[in-house]
């Protein structure tokens, strides 16, 4: 699949935004976190901005952004539609919780429940996003049960890293958040490694032989593509990445997105707020870069069955 930057940006940014939202809810409900106004303002602003920018990016990516509302109508069957609906719904409790936290400096009681509702909807949104990919049988590397866990785990991890940076930047202590961010990031990468090992080890589900039905004649090779000219399908879905290149990028993603943030977040727990905030910021930036690479690879490494008609052996 061609890694379209808007989609990569959307999924990572809004994933982090939803993750942060989740952590704000969790912190309010389970950790009785004080409703620090400026922290709340910054955190909600960042979370909602990431979500909104992500959603806008993907809307502008549409052929007809002005008709985007139509995308909310087929929630009964379409994960994309569901994602849109839930994403819009999430704004309601999230907005209210933000009002409570920032304007009223309250995040307990009903405000906590609003926060929790926003967190749950955030989880559902991320799940819906993941399901858009996971449900596509035509892309076997996505059509595995590990895609949704990966998306959720990375949303939680990146949210935690942001949350951690926030609390340290505002000097709120809460050193546990460093451990949480480190643990979740490590856990997310564990899930991702499982995903990678699954897709690497999976037997091809479809082949040039099954795509053409000509396997009984022997090995099937593309002799001539329909056109020497380009086409939409190949631009969108024909992207190929060399194995060697992919492996290098995986390592980069793992270091930037996993190892470095884990070490930095864990290390930050041992540091005073200001220094911790600095380190946590580096963790966020590093993780962000790593995640962009991870997401880029998620697309680039996915082989669409269409490519079986254009010279690829197996998908």
């Amino acid at each position, binding site marked *: 699949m061609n890694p379209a930057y808007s989609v990569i940006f959307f999924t990572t940014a809004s994933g982090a935004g939803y993750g942060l939202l989740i952590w704000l809810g969790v912190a309010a409900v389970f950790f009785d976190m004080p409703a620090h106004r400026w922290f709340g303002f910054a955190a909600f602003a960042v979370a909602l901005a990431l979500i909104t920018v992500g959603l806008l990016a993907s809307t502008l990516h549409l052929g007809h952004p002005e008709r985007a509302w139509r995308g909310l109508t087929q929630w009964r069957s379409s994960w994309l539609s569901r994602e849109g609906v839930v994403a819009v719904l999430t704004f309601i409790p999230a907005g209210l919780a933000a009002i409570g936290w920032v304007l009223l400096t309250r995040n307990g009681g009903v405000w906590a429940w609003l926060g929790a509702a926003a967190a749950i909807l955030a989880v559902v949104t991320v799940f819906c996003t993941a399901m858009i990919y996971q449900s596509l049988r035509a892309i076997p590397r996505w059509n595995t049960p590990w895609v949704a866990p990966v998306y959720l785990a990375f949303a939680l991890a990146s949210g935690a890293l942001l949350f951690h940076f926030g609390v340290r930047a505002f000097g709120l202590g809460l050193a546990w958040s460093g451990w949480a961010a480190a643990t979740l990031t490590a856990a997310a990468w564990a899930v991702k490694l499982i995903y990678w090992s699954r897709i690497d080890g999976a037997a091809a589900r479809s082949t040039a032989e099954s795509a053409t039905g000509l396997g009984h004649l022997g090995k099937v090779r593309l*002799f001539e593509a*329909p056109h020497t*000219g380009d086409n939409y399908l190949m631009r969108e879905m024909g992207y190929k990445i060399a194995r060697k290149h992919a492996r290098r990028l995986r390592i980069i993603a793992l270091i930037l997105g996993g190892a470095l943030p884990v070490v930095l977040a864990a290390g930050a727990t041992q540091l005073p707020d200001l220094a911790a905030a600095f380190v946590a910021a580096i963790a966020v930036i590093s993780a962000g870069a790593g995640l962009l690479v991870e997401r880029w690879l998620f697309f680039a490494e996915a082989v669409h069955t269409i490519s079986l008609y254009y010279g690829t052996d197996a998908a």
Partner: protein
Amino acid sequence: MSQSTSLKTENVDTSPPVSDEVKTTTCYMCACRCGINVHLRDGAIRYIEGNRNHPVNKGVLCAKGSAGIMQHYSPARLSKPLKRVGPRGTNEFVEIEWDEAMATATEWLADVRRSDPRKLAFFTGRDQSQGLTGFWASQFGTPNYAAHGGFCSVNMAAAGLYTIGGSFWEFGEPDWDRTRYFLMFGVAEDHDSNPIKAGLGKLKASGDAKFVSINPVRTGYSAIADEWLGIRPGTDGLFVLALVYELLHAGSVDLEYLVRYTNAPWLVHRAPGEPHNGLFVRDADGNPLAFDQNTRKLVNALAADIAPALQGSFDLTQLQGVDGHLSGTVVPSFQLLLDRYRDPQYAPDAVAERTGIDAATIRRIAAELAHAAFEQTIEIDTPWTDWAGRRHDKMIGRPVSMHAMRGISAHSNGFQTCRAIHMLQMLLGSIDCPGGFRYKPPFPRPAPPGPKPAGRSDQLAPNTPMPGPPLGFVSGPEDLLVEADGSPSRIDKAFSWEYPLAAHGMMHLVIRNAWARDPYPIDVLFMFMANMSWNSAMNTTETIEMLTDVDLDTGEYRIPKIIYSDAFSSEMVPYADLILPDTTYLERWDCISLLDRPISSADGPADAIRQPVVAPDRDVRPFQDVLIDLGARLGLPAFVDEAGGPRYAGGYADYIVNHERTPGVGPLAGWRGEDGALHGRGAANPNQLARYVENGCFWSEELAPEQRYFKFANQSYLQYSADMGWIPEAKQIVLQLYSEPMQKFRLAAQGHGDHQPPDAHRVRIETHFDPLPIWYPPFEEDFSDDDTYPLHALTQRPMAMYQSWGSQNAWLRQIHGWNKLYVHVDTAREAGLADDDWAWVESPYGRIKAQIKCMTGCNRNTVWTWNAIGKRRGSWNLDVNAPEARRGFLLNHLITDLLPPKNGHRYANADPVTGQAAWFDLKVRLIKAEPGEASESVPQFPVLENLPGVEKRPAILRYGARFLPAGNWRRQRSSS
């Protein structure tokens, strides 16, 4: 809940109006000439579909025909006459008015005609109006006229016409409905494009016929063959002769057929060294003789009810019934055939290695042919009467059919190879029988064919028409167009001792010879529809040099004046001095005549017209109108009336209706006679074109069932053919297994007769003019041995692209925007090459760089590419970075027009009998390009500037948006 809401959201209009008007005409995107219905809406072309009632295509269309809209609306179209102002080859032109253009052309041509008409060389490309252009040339008085046949497939035409009075090409077709075994030699697409596809579809649907394709490459038709034989190029003759060997050894030959329909029993003099050696034994009236087994006498071989011997050797002096003038030993020609092909040199084992087809396969194919012919015999209960008036209650068929085209013809041994195939057909008794190969009327015609060409200098005079047509058929040395000293009369040397049977002329030599002033200089080169500086040159780079070469003495170009008619900004345009822009095929009258290249089917004759379906939106004129106008301005007798005014003031449409070749026979056969009641012969009918238009722009007639087979010996058909004016008289046409005209040339070479070749050509003629088919290695093998140039290099026609002009077509160029060199995987591996690598391809004559694609369905010694995809940068109004130019390439840079000198003489790279260009003799080697070398094809040429008047090419094309309902948002978007 689950009711689809979407059903409510779209109201699909399932019955939108398609068009305001449908006009029929004839497709021109190739020479197949299918009938089309052009749907017009608001004056624009909405859709072009096949005409269901048309005899050629019966409703189907090919990819090119379907892309006609893009051809018509091409931004590469010329729009006004152009006069060259810069140096040749730079596209520096100014637009001029037609008055000036016509005046200039008339002045140049009149000068030539007044002094020496030979100094006009008029050559037309793959033109479909040779009836007119050839006639015009002969009226002008120049022998220097030809169309494209000489570089295309004259080997097939000549071998067929001299042998069976018809030919492959589009002059015949397999009996698709009945054949059980079909052999196809060297066809990728052919002129008979849609009928072949439809025919193969029929074979496939029937399920029990077998289709064998003999072709070094397994694509297209070969891909669906039941068996593909990946033969080594240039060796089909050997393969066929090995089949003949097998059949003769098994006695699997249709002797009855040979006796009845061929010259197998005709007696031949066996008198080595004598002037009549190898000629037929004839009586005083010129009739060939045979030995009658019943009476044991010599009899007229054309007589009915004789029982002629097919073998033996007879001493004339001991036979009764012999005219006094005969003596010596004679044998039936079939005896010579038996002696020749039962020789072990033709055994499957002897040819297997050379052809690349193993001996067991050759033996099996021979057995299958015999099985199909003799065990699966067809009988049709249609009574018919033969030439001698004898009634037969059945038609017996040998359901084996064959078709061959340029894979055979484009080799220097193509004429003889094609004759070998016709011999195989005759031995199996499968020509024009049910299930066999069938003639399309007006064929068969007598073999050897007529008329003879005119053009010796004693036949020419200033301001005087020639006494005959410039192209024709010679049947012996006396008919050649050579001067007293044996030198060629024509600029292209056609019909000279070098290429005696060059029935279609030799367009591929015009530029070379005009440049070299060999045999003489010319003044004006007038060309129509031929991209001679590009894909139809055998040596593009050199041709460009010759077109631009300046005579240092005069400061003039060595080819002083070039007039050219094209419809598009092709690679040839920059090399002309005066451009006469043509219309597109949808803007003009045209005529597809039985006098030219007919569109008949085996079941009946047909001809057709084109009518203008849209009016030109620019200042262009149909070339045929222009030519007729020039004819009148020059005062060519047939083009002016008594008063000296134009005889065909109405242009080509007028000519089509009113011109008569012989009394009552004109370009069109349908609706003749004043009231249009006559077909074939009849007075001109002023309403003829209207009748054609009413009938879908074609005329066709069905033969009666009894006329449909054995046309060469079918009384009713022969009578019909004579009545139509196609053959001089309703006499049997005897198939020429043994070719006497060939023997006449051989005798001349051996020193007999009044007309003998110059010494330098004797051996060549003696060797190649064998009256029985022979095989010899293609000439190129002498210069490119297997060690230095191990690979054969071929081109194939892509089905979805037409020659050079497909590339301007926005739709077709997406399918074939550039080409690669296809190589067998093993061969590629040996050369260290993989897919997409760039490689140098080298021949003795040049070097190109191309991108590689590996395949398995290819002869290992063969590389190939799609023909004419490569374009010159800046031509055809394509972007200068168009892939056609940056990645596409021509093999032509590797080919040569003249072979290297042999005994001091350079012959054309052509068949020694017909002069057919030997495109496919090319041998090459592959060398991997260095990693640093640019990913671009080589050679590249200076980028051409756009011509004046050529439209800006659109960045986005949204053809068809205009047909959406007014106000539709998608229609608005198209204003970009």
